[in-house]
């Protein structure tokens, strides 16, 4: 096994219909969340598996890592079903409340333990959308990085990778990057494969290691709220503005509109 790709994935939450905010007002009540593998991470994993499949058997190892509680195993098993060789889940109750930098600290520690040739992460997560975890890993590792990659040329064990990035306004940028490096992957870079329910079940046979903070050499103060640079104060549903269709003939519409304006101004109708 000469080349290793570490793919950092997240089990994101989507809102169910008629959700409620948690009692402390800082997040959505977990009962109303539908969980799934982050869409960007699906593309990142596919890119890694494609490199593995193009290489000789056993030449490339794909390892997925996620920071999350038990339920994140589901996302990891999906990754294993799609072709990852093994999975790592890191969790400690102290991790709760971490911002993206604290999560990156955990992922950085895992990278130092695994010493991969490349680290892939999704360009962003669909729930929190900071788009910073991947870049923060690079910062903490001191590795070069490329964000929002939508094309990649990489041969196993190569010293460099060729990447194409998506910039604002439809601009593209191509660059060479020294390995090891961290790449954050954009949607559309490939077509992620379907993981059948059977293959997900069978993936239970593949190794999924659960690590605690001590296993990766971090202390509880380095994660969670204490290890974060930002904290959530409040999560809320903004009050909706009122919209109303005014119907009828032009004259009727004008009359109604005038009445509404007068009402707002506090004048009598």
């Amino acid at each position: 096994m000469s080349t290793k790709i570490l793919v950092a994935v997240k089990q994101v939450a989507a809102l169910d219909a008629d959700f409620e905010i948690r009692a402390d007002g800082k997040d959505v009540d977990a009962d109303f969340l539908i969980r799934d593998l982050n869409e960007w991470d699906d593309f990142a994993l596919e890119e890694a598996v494609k490199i593995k499949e193009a290489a000789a058997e056993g030449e490339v190892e794909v390892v997925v890592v996620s920071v999350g509680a038990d339920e994140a195993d589901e996302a990891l098993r999906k990754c294993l079903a799609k072709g990852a060789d093994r999975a790592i889940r890191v969790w400690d109750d102290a991790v709760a409340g971490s911002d993206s930098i604290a999560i990156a600290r955990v992922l950085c520690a895992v990278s130092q333990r695994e010493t991969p040739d490349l680290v892939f992460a999704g360009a962003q997560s669909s729930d929190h959308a900071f788009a910073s975890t991947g870049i923060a890993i690079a910062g903490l590792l001191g590795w070069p990085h490329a964000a929002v990659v939508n094309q990649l040329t990489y041969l196993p064990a190569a010293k460099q990778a060729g990447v194409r990035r998506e910039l604002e306004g439809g601009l593209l940028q191509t660059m060479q990057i020294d390995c090891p490096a961290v790449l954050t992957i954009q949607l559309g870079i490939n077509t992620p494969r379907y993981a059948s329910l059977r293959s997900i079940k069978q993936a239970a046979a593949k190794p999924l290691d659960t690590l605690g903070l001590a296993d990766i050499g971090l202390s509880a103060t380095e994660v969670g709220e204490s290890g974060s640079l930002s904290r959530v104060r409040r999560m809320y549903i903004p009050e909706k503005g009122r919209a109303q269709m005014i119907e009828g003939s032009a004259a009727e519409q004008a009359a109604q509109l005038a009445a509404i304006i007068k009402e707002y101004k506090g004048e009598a109708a």
Partner: protein
Amino acid sequence: MMIDRHDLTRILFEDFHPLAVTVFYAIGYAAIGMFCWGTWIQIRKYRYGTAHAYTGTLLTRFRAMSASVISHRTIARRDHAAGAAHRLIFFGFALLFLGTSTITLEYDILKPLFGTRFWFGDFYLWFSLILDVAGVMLGLGLLYMMIRRGWIKPPKLNYARPDRVPTDPDYDRSNYRIEDWAFLWSLLLIAVTGFVLEAARLVWLEGRPSVWDYRWWSPMGAAFALIMKTGGMTAEAAGSLRSGLWWFHGLIALGFIALIPFSKVKHIFTASGSLMFRDPLAAQRLPRIPETQVNPGFQYITDLSWKQLLNLDACTKCGRCHEACPARATGAPLSPRDVILSLREFANSALASGTLPDKAELDIHGKSPGQVSMETLWSCRTCMACVEICPVAVEHVPIIVQMRRKLVEAGEMDPLLTKTLQTITKTGNSFGESKRKRGAWTKALPFPVKDARKEPVDVLWFVGDYASFDPRNQTVSQTFAGLLQEAGVDFGLLYDGESNAGNDIRRVGEEGLYEMLATANIDVMQKASFKTIVTTDPHTFNTIRNEYPDFGGAYEIQHYTTLLRDLLQSGALTVKYPLNRRVTFHDPCHLGRFNKGYDAPRDILKLIGCDLIDMKRCKANSFCCGAGGGRIWIPDPVGVEKPAQNRIREAAVIADLEVYVVSCPKDLTMFEDALKTTGNEGKFVVRELIELVREAVGAAPTPVSTPQAAVPA
């Protein structure tokens, strides 16, 4: 002059040199040897298949098969002329074969061993009369088949393939045509030379009263003899004609026998075998994947069971499935016939020898000769039209679904289908709606609907995705709920406990997801208390009825049509306003062909006073709406006629048609769309049968002003 009864028989090797007799026997044994060797090659091929479990005993299966073969029930369907001609050929051939065997029985077995003789006297006379009649039957049947192939040329006998283009190496199947004609001509030659030979023998032996005086017991021979004598043929000339023709007739007959296992003639055995192992629920109840099987579905030819390999050889290219297939009829690259023939050609080349080739050469997926492409497999609507009409019990649908299972595992499918499967995995429904919203349509009802998980009910209504989430179908669900309420039926729903029933997921080939859905639904139903299940969705009806028992969920379930019929007949619902409308009815595949529910909807239409004009393709031959087998989640090609449009055009020719009646949520969606896209909007309407019953029973009582919500928190 008295004639000894023992002289009333046919000469066999008279005037033959002993060496000639020996040569004849040698050729005969060689022919039988070749037949046996060829049979072994075929059996060896089938033995490469996987095991096949069948129900019942071989004896009951043999009886059922014999009944089908002797009655010709399956062969005469939808093609009476071909059925009649095949009957003539079959019984003619069978009688001639039995007759010839009788001679062998006496001459080669009973006489040399025990000195027993029976082939003389009255027996012989009747024998020659019956065999002459049999020869005429055979000849007439063959002549019609020749006229059919040569002049009538029904489109279903055209071997052009919809799944290949003319530049493909295996586009042309004209070799089959050579074989078809060789088969007909060789049999006809055997029959005709038999008669001429008989005539020549009569003229040659005209001096023997035991032959000549009884010649009209073989009327065809006697008629030919009359012609010969009128033409001035002498006994001597007839004698030499006889010795030449005797060899010719004998050699083609023996050649025919020798070639049976190598030619289409083998359908005598393969079709019988196929019929014998018919599965009456082949398409309705798909096979589970055994726990021990690592790779799901069919990837290699050796993944097929021996029975399926036998199916491939049973096909006689009669084209009935080709004709009935809705995908083929609307230009999709699929003909069930060509799937079977491709796999047959594949099996014949890959499994021909005593050793298996490399795995790579056994892969049946792809575009090379004999392989089946994914475009072909994804074109199938699993509507069962092919399985239903096949006269020799070829079961196409399970083979196609098994091949799709492999495609699903490899992710080789339309991206939209992939998305839908992911959506269903996540939310339990194909609309991507929240589970909690499943029962939301009941909020608009003026009465609460029970939650069957919380209180016992008589009837559990399994609603299904379309009837729960599709806005147009929600109104039908509300109407049906109103009818049940008025009829005093104690019913309830599973609300957010219900998931997609999985029928179409299973037919897509996503077996793992199907298992998840089926077991989740069964778990919820086990906890609920109810007597029977009703559903408005024929797809749900099929899978709960036929497939859930395999997962430990055996329930009594009916489609709403039988329940509504009962309610109308028992007086629980009364028709106040007979409709007097001219309607046609579309049989949903999963209610009609799959579960033979042809009568209930028609009875209801009668009860509510509709004048039903059936379309030409109805009941078992109903034409699919195009939504089955997961095709509702796969976009149809643009600019090509869709099956639903084809169907609406068929209905549109009915004079003064007012209503096109459906009894399936997906049908309502498909046909209301097709009504618009074919420009028939305004000419007639598409309605759910439930809506017509509502009208006939009279409007529901006015809803109370504040509807009571019945959705669980």
